[in-house]
C-alpha cells in the first residue's frame, strides 16, 4: 500500500501490522496527551509535586533524556570533527534518537512550568547568571541544529527526494553538515554542562552543591562528560533493540564496536572523575557545611547509600570495564548489559541530582519529604517514550536511516 | 477530484520543466502571480491597519462629558486642586463624588452634562464610574509622590494636555487585555512623538535612562514644554534627583 514510500531495496513489515502497532503506541501517546492537557488547563495541582519537591519526575526525565540524547552530539562530534568516518553508518539513528530526546525534553519543560504561556520569558527576559537560562538557550538552539540534521533524512525519502528543490536542499545541507555539527557540539557541551550546573550551583543545598572553576561547578563538566559517555551507550542500546524488533542486522559490527570502545573509555574516565568528585565532596565540601555523608543517605525509606553504589559501581565501574576490554565488547550479552547499565547510570545520576536534592532536609528541624508521582506525571513522562517509538517506527519505515541496511540485507 | 487536480498539475510542471516554456506564457503567469501578491499585500495591510484596530478596541463614552478647561480656570491650584495628594502620601487620582459636591451641590449653570451629573449622581449619591485613560495594570506600582514631589515632574509629561480638553474623549478599551488604549498609545504602530503618547514600561525606562545619561542632577526637564500653560508654578528643580540605578523590579511592580 505504501510501498512507494519505502526506501528502495529494503523489506518492511506489512502496512496493516505497521498501522496496528502505531495505534497501540498511539493509544499510550493519547493517554499522555490527555494528562498533558489536564496539566495545562487545570494547573500543576494535577501532579504530586509540592513546595518541597519543586523539581520532581519531570525535571528528572528532562535531564535524563537529554543525557541519553547526548549520543547525537557526541557521535556527530566524532564523525564530523574527529573524522571517525565509520560512524556515518549510525549517525542518522543517533540524530533521530537525539531529536526525539530533545523534542521530548522541550515538551516536558513546557508542561512543567507553571505558566506555559510565559515560557518565552526565559529568552526575552533572560537572566544570564541562571544555569536554567543557559539550558534553555542551548537546548532550543541545539534542538534547531538537530532538526537541521534530521531534515536531510526526511528529504531522502524516496518520494520527497524526487522533488528537485528538496533533493538539492538535502544535498547542500549534507555539504555543510560539519559546520552544523560543530555548532551543535558547542551548544551541546554547554547545555549538558549547564544541566549539571543547575544542581551544582545550589549553594543552599549541600547535597547538590559542588565547588568548581570560574562560574561552573564540577557537575557542569561531569554532566557533559557523562552525557558523552552514556549517550552513545543509549544509541547502541536502542539500535540493538531495533535490530531485535526488526529481526535483522542494521549496523555493521565494526561500527558498533568502535562506538562502544569510545563510549567505554569515556565512561571509564567519567567514573574516575565522578569518584574523585564524590570523594572530595564527601570529605571536604559537605563537612564544611556541617553535614556528614551519611546525613544524606540515612533516616529515610528511599534514598539509601545503595543509590550511590548503584550509580558509581554498578552503573559506572562495571560497564566501563566491560566496554574497554575487547572481550567484553565482543560478547553480545556483556556489551548490551554494559550499554544498558551505562545508560541507566546517567538516569540514576540525574535522579539523584534532582530528587534527592529536593528530599535532603537542610534545616535541622525538617524531615525527609517523600514523593511519588501522580498518574498525570507518569503519563506525561511516558508520553515522550510513545512519541519516540512512533517517530522511530515511521522514520525507520520510510527513511533510509541505516545506510548499511541494504548492503547487509543483500549479503544476508 | 483531488487526484485529477494532482495529475493536471503534474503535467503542468512537466511542461514547465522539461519543455522550454514560451516567454509570453511565462510573463502572463508572472503577471497573475504578481496580481495575487499585490492583492494579498494590500488586503493584509488593510486588515492590519484599519480593521484590526476596530476589532481590538471597544469604544466607550465617559458617563459625563467633562470639561477640564472650565474647571482648571475655576480652581486655584491647577491640577492638584482636584487631583491632590492625600496626607498619607497616596495620590487621589480621579476625584470622588464627595469632592465634586463641594461646588456642585446644585447645578451651577445650564450645561446639560452638569445637570445630568447633578441629577444622576449628586442627588442620588452614586459615584461616577469614570473611565480612567491612564489606568495601569494591577501589577504596576506607580508613585505619584516620587515623580511629582521629588522628581518635580509636570503632569503633562505623562498625561499630556488633558487639562486643556473641553470634552472627554472616547475611552478605548483593549478587548484582549482590558486596558486603556492610552497605555499602548494612540498610534497602533507603537510610534511616539511626545512623552505622553505612550505609557508602557519601556517609556518609563526611556525617561529614566535619558535622565541617567544627563547625570544625576537634572536642572531642566528634558522636553520643550516652556510654551505650555502650566497649571501650577514649576518649582526650582535643581534638587531633582532621579533614580537611575537599575533597581529591583518591585520598585515599580507589585
Amino acid at each position: 500500500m505504501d510501498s512507494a514510500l519505502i526506501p528502495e531495496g529494503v523489506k518492511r513489515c506489512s502496512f496493516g501490522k505497521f498501522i496496528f502497532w502505531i495505534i497501540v503506541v498511539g493509544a499510550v501517546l493519547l493517554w499522555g496527551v490527555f494528562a498533558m492537557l489536564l496539566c495545562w488547563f487545570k494547573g500543576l495541582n494535577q501532579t504530586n509535586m509540592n513546595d518541597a519537591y519543586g523539581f520532581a519526575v519531570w525535571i528528572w526525565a528532562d535531564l535524563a533524556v537529554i543525557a541519553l540524547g547526548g549520543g547525537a552530539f557526541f557521535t556527530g562530534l566524532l564523525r564530523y570533527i574527529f573524522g571517525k568516518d565509520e560512524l556515518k553508518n549510525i549517525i542518522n539513528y543517533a540524530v533521530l534518537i537525539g531529536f526525539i530526546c530533545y523534542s521530548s525534553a522541550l515538551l516536558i519543560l513546557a508542561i512543567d512550568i507553571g505558566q506555559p504561556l510565559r515560557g518565552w520569558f526565559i529568552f526575552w527576559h533572560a537572566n544570564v547568571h541562571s544555569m536554567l537560562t543557559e539550558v534553555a538557550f542551548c537546548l532550543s538552539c541545539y534542538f534547531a541544529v538537530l532538526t537541521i540534521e534530521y531534515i536531510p533524512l526526511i528529504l531522502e525519502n524516496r518520494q520527497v527526494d524526487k522533488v528537485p528543490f528538496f533533493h538539492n536542499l538535502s544535498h547542500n545541507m549534507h555539504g555543510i553538515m560539519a559546520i552544523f555539527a560543530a555548532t551543535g557540539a558547542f551548544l551541546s557541551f554547554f547545555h549538558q554542562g549547564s544541566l549539571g550546573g543547575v544542581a551544582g550551583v545550589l549553594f543552599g543545598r549541600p547535597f547538590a552543591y559542588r565547588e568548581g572553576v570560574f562560574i561552573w561547578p564540577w557537575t557542569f563538566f561531569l554532566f557533559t562528560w557523562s552525557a558523552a559517555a552514556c549517550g552513545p551507550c543509549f544509541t547502541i542500546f536502542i539500535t540493538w533493540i531495533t535490530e531485535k524488533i526488526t529481526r535483522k542486522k542494521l549496523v555493521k559490527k565494526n561500527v558498533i564496536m568502535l562506538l562502544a570502545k569510545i563510549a567505554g573509555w569515556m565512561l571509564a574516565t567519567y567514573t574516575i572523575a565522578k569518584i574523585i568528585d564524590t570523594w572530595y565532596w564527601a570529605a571536604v565540601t559537605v563537612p564544611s557545611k556541617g553535614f556528614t555523608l551519611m546525613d544524606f543517605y540515612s533516616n529515610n525509606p528511599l534514598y539509601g547509600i545503595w543509590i550511590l553504589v548503584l550509580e558509581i559501581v554498578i552503573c559506572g565501574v562495571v560497564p566501563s570495564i566491560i566496554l574497554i576490554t575487547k572481550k567484553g565488547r565482543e560478547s553480545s550479552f556483556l556489551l548490551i548489559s554494559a550499554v544498558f547499565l551505562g545508560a541507566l547510570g546517567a538516569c540514576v545520576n540525574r535522579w539523584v541530582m534532582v530528587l534527592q536534592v529536593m528530599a535532603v532536609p537542610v534545616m535541622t528541624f525538617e524531615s525527609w519529604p517523600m514523593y511519588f508521582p501522580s498518574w498525570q506525571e507518569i503519563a506525561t513522562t511516558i508520553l515522550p517514550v510513545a512519541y519516540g517509538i512512533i517517530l522511530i517506527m515511521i522514520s525507520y519505515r520510510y527513511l533510509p536511516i541505516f545506510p548499511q541496511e541494504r548492503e547487509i540485507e543483500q549479503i544476508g | 477530484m483531488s487526484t485529477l487536480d494532482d495529475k493536471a498539475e503534474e503535467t503542468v510542471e512537466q511542461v514547465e520543466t522539461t519543455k522550454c516554456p514560451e516567454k509570453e506564457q511565462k510573463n502572463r503567469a508572472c503577471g497573475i502571480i504578481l496580481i495575487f501578491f499585490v492583492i494579498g499585500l494590500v488586503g493584509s495591510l488593510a486588515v492590519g491597519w484599519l480593521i484590526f484596530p476596530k476589532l481590538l478596541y471597544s469604544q466607550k463614552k465617559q458617563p459625563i462629558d467633562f470639561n477640564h478647561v472650565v474647571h482648571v480656570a475655576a480652581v486655584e491650584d491647577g491640577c492638584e486642586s482636584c487631583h491632590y495628594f492625600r496626607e498619607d502620601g497616596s495620590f487621589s487620582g480621579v476625584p470622588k463624588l464627595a469632592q465634586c459636591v463641594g461646588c456642585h451641590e446644585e447645578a451651577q449653570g445650564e450645561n446639560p452634562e452638569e445637570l445630568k451629573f447633578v441629577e444622576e449622581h449628586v442627588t442620588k449619591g452614586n459615584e461616577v464610574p469614570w473611565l480612567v485613560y491612564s489606568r495601569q495594570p494591577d501589577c504596576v506600582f506607580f508613585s505619584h509622590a516620587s515623580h511629582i514631589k521629588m522628581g518635580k515632574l509636570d503632569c503633562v509629561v505623562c498625561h499630556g494636555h488633558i487639562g486643556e480638553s473641553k470634552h472627554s474623549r472616547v475611552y478605548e478599551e483593549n478587548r484582549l487585555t482590558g486596558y486603556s488604549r492610552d497605555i499602548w498609545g494612540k498610534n497602533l504602530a507603537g510610534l511616539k512623538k511626545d512623552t505622553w503618547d505612550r505609557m508602557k514600561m519601556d517609556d518609563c525606562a526611556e525617561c529614566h535612562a535619558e535622565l541617567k545619561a544627563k547625570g544625576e542632577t537634572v536642572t531642566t526637564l528634558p522636553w520643550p514644554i516652556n510654551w505650555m500653560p502650566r497649571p501650577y508654578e514649576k518649582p526650582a528643580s535643581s534638587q531633582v534627583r532621579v533614580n537611575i540605578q537599575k533597581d529591583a523590579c518591585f520598585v515599580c511592580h507589585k
Partner: protein
Amino acid sequence: MKVCRRSFLSLIIGGAAGTALSPLPLKLMDDSSIWSQAWPWTPVPEDGEVSHVGSICTLCPGGCGITVRKVNDRAIKIEGMKGHPVNNGGICVLGLSGLQLLYGPTRVKTPLKRVGARGEGRWEKISWDEAIAEVVKKLGGLREKGKSHTVACISGTDRGTVAQLLGRFLTVYGSPNFIRIPSIQDSYELTMHLMQGVQASAGFDVENADFVLSFGSGLIEGWGSPVRMIKANSKWKERGKVVQIESRLSNTAAKADKWVPINPGTEAALALAIANVIIQKSLYNADFVKNYSSGFEEFKQMVLNEFSPDDVSGITGVSASTIESLAKSFAGSSKPLAVCGRGQGETPGSLNEFMAVHTLNALVGNIDKKGGVWTVPDPDYIKWPEVEMDRIAANGMSKARIDGAGSKRYPDTRYLLDRLPNAINSGKEYPVEALFVAGANPVYTIPDSKAVKEAFNKVPFVVSFSSYMDETAVNSDLILPNHVFLERYEDVPTPVGLQKPIIGLSKPVVKPLFNTKHLGDVILLMAKAFGGQIAKAFPWDSYEVCLKETLGNKWDKLINDGFWADSNFRPAVWGGAFHTPSRKFEFVNKGKAESIKIEGDEKAYPLILMPYDSMRLASGFIGDPPFVIKTVEDTVLKGKEIVVEVNPKSARGFREGDQAILSTPKGSVKVRVHHFNGIMPGLVALPRGLGHTAYDEYLADKGVNFNELIGPVEDPVSGLNAAWGIRAKLTRA
C-alpha cells in the same frame, strides 16, 4: 486554473508581507503577553482612600482594641490598636482573621425559619417582621399559659448592655433562666465570693508580677485576655519567672522558666503542699494573715496534717524537694502570683483547686496588691430604672432555676449551664419550652455533645441570634442574625482577667452587609410587640439610643478613643476589701480537699484523655476562620483527621502517624497518633476547637470535637463542671 497553486502561494506571501508590515503581529503578541500576565479571573482589588476605624474585637472575652484599615468602603485589614490598655498594638491570630468572618460564607444573611427537620439545614427566608412576630407569638402563648419560666436564654456573657437587655427582657417577661456560658470566671467569682465576700471578677496584675506560679493555666494559649497575657509573658522574660505546673509540655510550659510535670488532677494537693511549706517555714505574710484573715489556724492544722510535701509528692508525682523549692521561691519573690484554670479556662474546674491556689496568693499577701489578684467590680455605668414586673413575670421569676444554680445544693453558684442538658433530658425539672441562644454556641462548646443535642431536640422552640451558621444555629428553629462585631455598636466592659475596670466600644466599621439586625434592637422590637410592662421596661427607640444614654458622658471618649478607663480606680485596701461576715479574708476550710474523680474505669480505659488548647484553635462560640485553620500544624490536624499526642512510652505499638480508635465512656472517634515526648506517659492529649460540623468548608468536618468524648463532672461544692479529663483507650482502627 493553471496557475492556481502558485497564485495562491503568491497571495499567501503577499498577505504575510502585508501583515508583517502592519502593526497586527507585534500588537497582538504584546497584548496576548499582557493577557497571559494578568488573567481576567484573578481579582484586582480596587484602590482608593485609606482610612482607619478604631473598635473593639469581641471574638473572645479578651476585649482587645482593634484598628481596622479601610479602602473606600471595604475593610482591608484588622490590626491591634496602639495604646489600648489591653493589647497595645498586639493582636491575636483570630482577631486578625476577623474580616474573613465579616465577608465569609458562614454569615447568616437574613432571618431564617426552619422548614426541614432539626439540623437538616433547610431554611426559609423570612422578613424581620415575620421573625419577630413568630417569636412574640410563641413567647406570648407560653406567658398566657403561665409557663413564662420555661423560657431559657443562653448568653455568652452577662455583662454589657446587650446581655443586660437580654436579662432584663427575661426578667420582665418572667423567666429566671438566664444562663451564662461557663468558664473559669464562674470558679473565680465563686472563690472571691466565698473567701473575700465580694461579687466581682478576679483581675490579675500580671504585668507587675515577678513570679508566676501557674497550675495548668495556658498563660500564653488563650487564658484570660490572650494578647495581654502574651505581652505579659514577654515582660516576664525580661524580669520575672514563670513556673508551669502541668502534665503536658504545653506552649506555656515550654516558655516557662521551669516546667513541673504533675499527675493530672492533683493540682489542689500540690497547692496545699506548697502552703504547707510556706506555713511551716513561716514564709507567709504575717501582717495579712494576722490582721486581715480569719480561719488561718484551722487551715494551718488541716494543711500541716494532711499535705506534707512527702505525702503530696506521692500523689502528684512532684518531688518533695521541688515542692519545697517552689514554695521558697514563690514566697521569696516580691510580687508572686498564683493562678489556675486549665488551658484557656473554658472549663470552670474544681472549686477546691481554685480556693487552694487563691490561698497561696493570700498567704503571701498579694490580694489587691501590685502584681497580685485584684477584686474588679463591674463598671457601674448601666443604671437603668428597676423593672416593674407584672403578675405573670413575678410568678415566673419566683420559680427555681432549671440549672439548679442558687438552689439549696449550690447556693452560691450563679449559672450552671453544664447541668442544663441533664435537667432537660432527665425531665425531673419543668420542661424548657423555648430557648434563646445569643453570643454562644452551646451545641458545640458544652461537654457531652450527644446529651446536648438530645436536650436541644427536646426543646420545641430554639431561637438563635447567631451571625454565623454555627452548630447551634443549625439546630435551631429560627435564626435572627445579629450584625457581626464589625457592623455594630456594643459596649465591652472589662475584659476577662484585667485588673482595672475599663469599657470598650465596638463600632460599626462597615455598613451592615446583609439583612441582619442588632440583637439589642431585636430585643427592643420584641418588647414593644409585647406591650405592657415589658414594653415599659425598654423605653428606648433603638439600641443606639439606649447605648448612648447608658454610657452618658463616656460616649464621646469612647467614640474618639475606643475605650474608657476609670482613671480613679485603685485596688481596695485590705482594711475594707473583704465583705465576708468576719470582714476578713476567709481561709475557707471545707474539710478534706476532695480531688475530682474522672469518669471511666481504669481497667477498661487504661489511658487518660485530656484536652489541650492552642491560640491557633478557637474553641469558643467562634470557629476558626480560614486563615486560622491554615496555621494549625500537621501534628494537630492532618487532612480531616485529628491527631492525638501520646508519649512514645505509652503508644503501645502505635507508630507515628498511625490511625487509631480513641474511645472514652462517652464515645469513640478515629484519630491519628503523634508521638510527643512532652506528654506524661499514660495520657492522651486531644486539641480543642476542631470537629465543627457547621461553618464553612474550610472548617467543617475536620477533626473531632473534644466535647463528644467527655461529659461534665459536677464539682461537689459549686456544681460547676470540674472534669479535667476522662479515661480513654486507644485501639487499632
